[in-house]
């Protein structure tokens, strides 16, 4: 499988994602610069964590207008797997590829620590190798991770089984403890926690691997 990792000015988890895919998983990963308007025939796209364009205006707001995001939108519309992690999640909501918004953490602090998540659905290319109810230990590192959407949108997400993960101990005030959501086609996942930072035994948890492995096996049987 060939995974393209998008690099915006200010991305800083791009190499972590590259390492997790290529070294921990043994697949091919490459970087895609933000001003490229094509993805180069990759099989999946990762929008990595960081501070794209310095988080100016709003987190992810400027990245939305970059040439690469037009290509990512088309790739997603065609059913391609897109995983947005942390700032990548913020870019996806600013692009309206996923609903809602990410606000300042309720406690205002930047939080960098491990959290526990519950897998809420196994019916997605990102979670099918896990089972519903499995607990994952993954790190978070964000100041703007408080998921917000109006009640109608939240009800719709729940009714359509589009909440992928919930926090066991909500660290940032996210609505209904939501840590990650899927798009309607279930081929786009946005999540605040970092699976790529929990993909090597050295990092203290390898619970993030199940998400990347799910992507690989879902791609193989597509």
């Amino acid at each position, binding site marked *: 499988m060939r995974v393209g990792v998008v690099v915006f000015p200010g991305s800083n988890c791009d190499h972590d994602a590259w390492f997790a895919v290529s070294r921990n998983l043994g697949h091919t990963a490459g970087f895609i610069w933000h001003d490229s308007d094509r993805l180069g025939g990759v099989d999946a796209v990762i929008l990595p964590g960081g501070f794209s364009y310095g988080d100016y*205006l*709003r987190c992810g*707001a400027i990245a939305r*207008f970059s040439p690469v995001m037009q290509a990512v939108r088309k790739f997603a519309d065609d059913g391609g797997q897109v995983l947005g992690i942390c700032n990548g999640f913020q870019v996806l*909501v*600013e692009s309206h590829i996923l*609903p*809602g*918004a990410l*606000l*300042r*953490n*309720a*406690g*205002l602090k930047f939080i960098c620590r491990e959290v526990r998540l519950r897998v809420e659905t196994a019916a997605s290319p990102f979670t099918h190798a896990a089972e519903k109810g499995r607990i994952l230990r993954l790190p978070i590192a964000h100041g703007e991770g*408080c998921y*917000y*959407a*109006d009640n109608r949108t939240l009800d719709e997400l729940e009714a359509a089984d589009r909440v992928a993960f919930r926090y066991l101990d909500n660290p940032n*005030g996210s609505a209904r403890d939501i840590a990650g959501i899927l798009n309607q086609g279930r081929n786009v996942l946005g999540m605040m926690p970092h699976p790529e930072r929990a993909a090597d035994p050295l990092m203290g948890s390898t619970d993030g691997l199940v998400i990347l492995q799910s992507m690989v096996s879902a791609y193989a049987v597509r």
Partner: protein
Amino acid sequence: MKARVYVSLKPTVLDPQGQTIRSALAGLGHAAIAEVRQGKFFDLTLQPGTAREKASAEIERIAHDILSNPVIEDYQVEFLD
């Protein structure tokens, strides 16, 4: 000609920064302040000779599509001169 675009969180969206400022004000003895909501503004300077009517529609679009996120924020446009 200048235009100012005010952007603030919708009343239904929690503003933890505003709450923190309010509690700091309460700590300083400003008992009269019941609530603080925080926002930001952008000053846009227009090219000389731009027609106000034409600029108005364009600024409205910019405020809605770029400067604010309509999911969580409201905006208001004001011409300064």
